[in-house]
């Protein structure tokens, strides 16, 4: 009376890479060097290893991209979105090695796209200070990606912790956490950003804080809802009835099971955060010059409102749009695929 069973097949390399642990390692390999490169560029440069740290990120990005494309075959939406996102990630990790002009070096102001100066060609022209637009556009994705990813990640950690506590432990904790998040959710997001960044002063780290304040309550609500839903599942009862510590139940039993909707939401939220960073930078509350950044490029060019210089506005606008489109399409595709299962 045994059920028919298939012998466990030996895992191929691709399958082994697709296991969650491998994916996490690859993602970290992709993101951490980038974060280090951007946030701790100074000390790394002093140690003489600033460029070197990015090297492991390049193969990690390519492998992740290949894996993603392989497993998203069913959804062209996800493929398109993933391609856009990975394009920018790849640019971010490889841009120091690309044959580009120095993005901060003024060469010849207001050169329209295609200008040739000596043996240099400005494919996308130069900006008002004479810096190469192509180079600035490609370098610009680094900061937006790094701060966007960091801010979203921190918001997620905070949101998940509180969401799990509120959803799983409930009671007075839920009331307190829910009230605080209600207070924060009562603000239109941009108002909250303005208030927080005006108080803390504009900088990447403060954006992380502001995004956490603005996003964590929403994430907390999602996680709380998922936790409330999952906590009535029998496997949680099973864990409770064997006397597991609530912390273990939250982390080991609940957390892995809320990840599906969270990953989709995270993609969307990465998009929102990217928008927020770009917008805040445009408003002067975000990242500060001189390094290239799309929001800054827009801000700097926004005083030059004539047709002839509109390429300076269009280039960063299209770049940021393509990245956000990528995140959104990816989220759509992932959701579509998760519903299909």
């Amino acid at each position: 009376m045994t059920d028919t069973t298939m012998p466990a097949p030996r895992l191929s390399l691709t399958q082994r890479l697709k296991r969650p642990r491998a994916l996490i390692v690859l993602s970290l390999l992709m993101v951490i060097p980038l974060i280090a490169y951007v946030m701790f560029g100074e000390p790394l440069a002093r140690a003489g290893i600033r460029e070197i740290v990015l090297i492991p990120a390049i193969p990690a990005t390519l492998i992740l991209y290949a894996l993603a494309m392989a497993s998203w075959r069913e959804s062209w939406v996800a493929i398109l979105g993933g391609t856009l996102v990975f394009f920018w990630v790849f640019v971010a990790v490889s841009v120091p090695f690309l044959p580009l002009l120095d993005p901060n070096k003024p060469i010849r102001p207001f050169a329209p796209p295609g200008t040739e100066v000596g043996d240099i060609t400005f494919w996308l022209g130069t900006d008002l200070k004479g810096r190469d637009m192509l180079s600035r556009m490609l370098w610009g994705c680094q900061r937006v990606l790094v701060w966007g990813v960091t801010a979203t990640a921190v918001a997620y950690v905070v949101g998940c912790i509180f969401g799990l506590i509120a959803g799983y432990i409930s009671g007075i904790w839920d009331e307190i956490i829910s009230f605080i998040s209600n207070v924060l959710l009562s603000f239109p997001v941009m108002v909250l950003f303005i208030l927080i960044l005006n108080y803390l002063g504009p900088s990447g780290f403060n954006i992380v804080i502001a995004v956490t304040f603005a996003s964590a309550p929403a994430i907390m609500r999602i996680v709380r809802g998922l936790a409330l839903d999952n906590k009535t599942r029998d496997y949680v009862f099973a864990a409770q009835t064997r006397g597991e510590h609530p912390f273990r139940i939250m982390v080991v039993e609940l957390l892995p099971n809320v990840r599906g909707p969270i990953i989709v939401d995270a993609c969307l939220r990465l998009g929102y955060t990217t928008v927020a960073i770009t917008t805040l930078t445009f408003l002067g509350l975000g990242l500060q010059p001189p390094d290239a950044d799309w929001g800054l490029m827009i801000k700097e060019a926004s005083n030059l409102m004539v047709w002839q210089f509109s390429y300076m506005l269009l280039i960063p606008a299209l770049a940021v749009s393509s990245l956000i489109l990528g995140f959104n399409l990816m989220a759509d595709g992932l959701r579509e695929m998760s519903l299909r299962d």
Partner: protein
Amino acid sequence: MSFLKPRKDDHPKVHEAYEVMKDGRMDRREFVRVAALVGVSAGAAYAMAGIPSPAWALENSPFPADDPKAKKGGKLRVGMQIQKMEDTATYSWAEMSNQTRHIVEHLSMTGPDNITRPMLAESWTVSDDLKTWTFKLRKGVMWHNGEEFVADHVVWNIRRWLQPGLGSSNVGLAAFAAMRKDSGKKDSKGKAIMVEIPGAVEAVDKHTVRFNLKKPVLSVPEDCYNYPTALMHPSFKKPFSSNPIGTGPFTLTDLQVGKQAILKRVTKMSNGKPFTYWGGEVYLDEIHYYNFSNENQLSALASGSVDAIYEFTIEQMALAKSLPINIIPARTARTLCCRMQISKKPFDNHKLRQAIVKSVDNAKVKNLVYPTGGDVGQNHHVAPVHPDYFDLPALKRDVAAAKKLLAEAGYPNGIEVTIDVGNTDGPWHQTVCEALRDQMKEAGINLKINVMPASKYWEIWDTTPFGATAWTHRPLGTMVMGLGYRTGVPWNETHMASKEFDAALDAAEATFDVEKRKPLLGKAEKILQDAAVMVLPIFRPVYTGSSKKVHGFPPHPTGYHQFNKVWMG
């Protein structure tokens, strides 16, 4: 070349200056300025100097000559930051005074040619010791409320500025500072409270005012046109905007801070009688100021939202050139002062400062940021446009020397320093710092640029160890030196404290003769330069623009709007 000789009753200084000029030791334009200062009419002064009087040097009027093609009527829309108009005496921004300048007027008026002419005063005379100044007021000048403008009104205004609690920056001007004395009392921080010297300003008769100064002051007429010195009717109550009584051709009909200030011609006085403006023809019917932040003004002009603007920055020059507008440049002494605070580490190290200064090529920086226009700074804050500018030998970049100095300063392996920059005048501040960074790098100095929003920079400008501070134009070299570098003055952001410097500056300030003053000031310049407290590479021009419809828009170095003769075509 024909020279008009000074008359007998002209101020002895005129004679003195005339001689100096004749000897070729004084620039003719400088002579015109000096002569005008001591009461010679501008027209006469130009005649004495033997140069043709420009169109605006109309006899007995501070305003430019009427353009025969001028058309009457129309409104001028100007893009500028709209500020509040509380009290002219406590104005802190030139924009505020632009909103008021056509409502209330000054005793004197400095034109775009840097010449100060009588305005509400008809003329002035000064004693030989430069201590007693007598202003004859114009007769028949009427306030909008129907009263006649008289000497008592002037006295009332000046005494108001001198009150200790008002907080007017006018008391920092040499003319009015010389009307105050120490009261002997101290405020909570131990600073002396200054009070008016009785009789320092007096109404001699209905149309004569006399200043009795405690020390000689040369710049009295110039001081009387500083932006917070507009003369108000004694019925003034804060805020000015709700009861704007003046002598000017316009009055305020609507003020919405951050949005607009609408000025309209005054046709009737409040007693119902028609108002006749003393200053002759005024063409515009209305002046509309609309709020645009500095960086948006040119776009507003481009989009046709306004006809003229307050200012645009060098980065926008390419845009401006591409537009069908008049670009109006003005040569000024405005500058960016990348100064080190010598009381703070590591800038207390003189060798280090010297290394920093030596590693920079000021001319190269200037040419990078302002390829045309502007003047190269020599790290001492006196600009070639200043009449008392002493031309020290140009600074030379010397990387090897800089490296050596750096090693001597104790940093043989180089050093990292951070400069705060707030781009308070536009993004070119940052460009300057980036140029400094690139140049210093060769000398082993790693400059980090900490960019912050303008408002944040103004909170730390006088405390940061290394910062790029923008300074505005002032008419005289002695003025900037006195404001910025004399021991213990509030704006001394370098914390420079040098007795020799103070002494040199005192000597320069007490010397009327420009040619004599120049070397004295030159000494102070040299001390400042050698102290190596700052990199001051550029004296920048100021650009503004107007649409082709606007005629006669005056390019004023301090951005003062003088629209009496502006007309719309």
